[in-house]
């Protein structure tokens, strides 16, 4: 399948909320403070108030559920949700947990963003399926988001 770059999205996370051991795994919520996104057809800022609801499953895979509102530079609001998976070798995951910067090619971090907007200029986002590769930095993840053609 073919992909086309949609945008690069940087999000800054606030103090995480360690909910702890829940029936399906270990849950940690990361509030999103702010962020930026930029691509050929859209650019702007991430509004405060979003979050990434993560669940570390019993098989060692981290499920991510990112929900944020994007505001384009020309004032459109875009609701973005993104389910993802992150996993890797134990020493790599341990380095991430220590807050170190790790080469994103050494672990699996993929998500499937979806968009909703009422703004006509950005209505194309309502009609596409996207995928993203993640790079988990100490200050927050960077997602490179691609439209599936």
């Amino acid at each position: 399948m073919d992909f086309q770059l949609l945008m690069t999205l940087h999000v800054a996370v606030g103090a995480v909320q360690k909910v702890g051991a829940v029936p399906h795994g270990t849950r940690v919520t990361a509030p999103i403070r702010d962020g930026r996104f930029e691509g050929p057809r859209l650019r702007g800022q991430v509004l405060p108030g979003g979050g990434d609801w993560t669940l570390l499953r019993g098989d060692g895979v981290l499920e991510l559920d990112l929900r944020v509102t994007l505001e384009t530079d020309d004032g459109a609001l875009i609701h973005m949700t993104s389910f993802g998976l992150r996993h890797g070798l134990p020493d790599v995951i341990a380095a991430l947990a220590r807050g170190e910067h790790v080469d994103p090619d050494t672990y699996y971090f993929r998500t499937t963003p979806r968009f909703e907007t009422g703004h006509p200029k950005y209505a194309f986002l309502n009609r596409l399926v996207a995928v993203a590769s993640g790079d988990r930095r100490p200050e927050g993840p960077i997602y490179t988001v691609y439209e599936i053609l």
Partner: protein
Amino acid sequence: MRSRPLMTLRLSTAPVQDIGAAPRGTRVTFPITGGSFEGERLRGKVLPGGYFRTVPRFETAEPKYAFLNRLLAIGAAEIRADGPVHVIEELL
């Protein structure tokens, strides 16, 4: 971004269930009556029940297929008279 073939999924659908105008729009459900899937690493049949998805996700308790629990996939579907055919690729 790269992906590689995971499987081709062929579904047989029963007559659609036209649920009509729901709060999020007009909803139509396609009952799945069966089907088959085939790829290099897995093949088999589809059990009745369930419906359409475009970003497939898998859950299995079978160790041989545990790799499916750890991947994200994308599907491009072609609608045919006897049901959709999904070509599903693993996101690398």
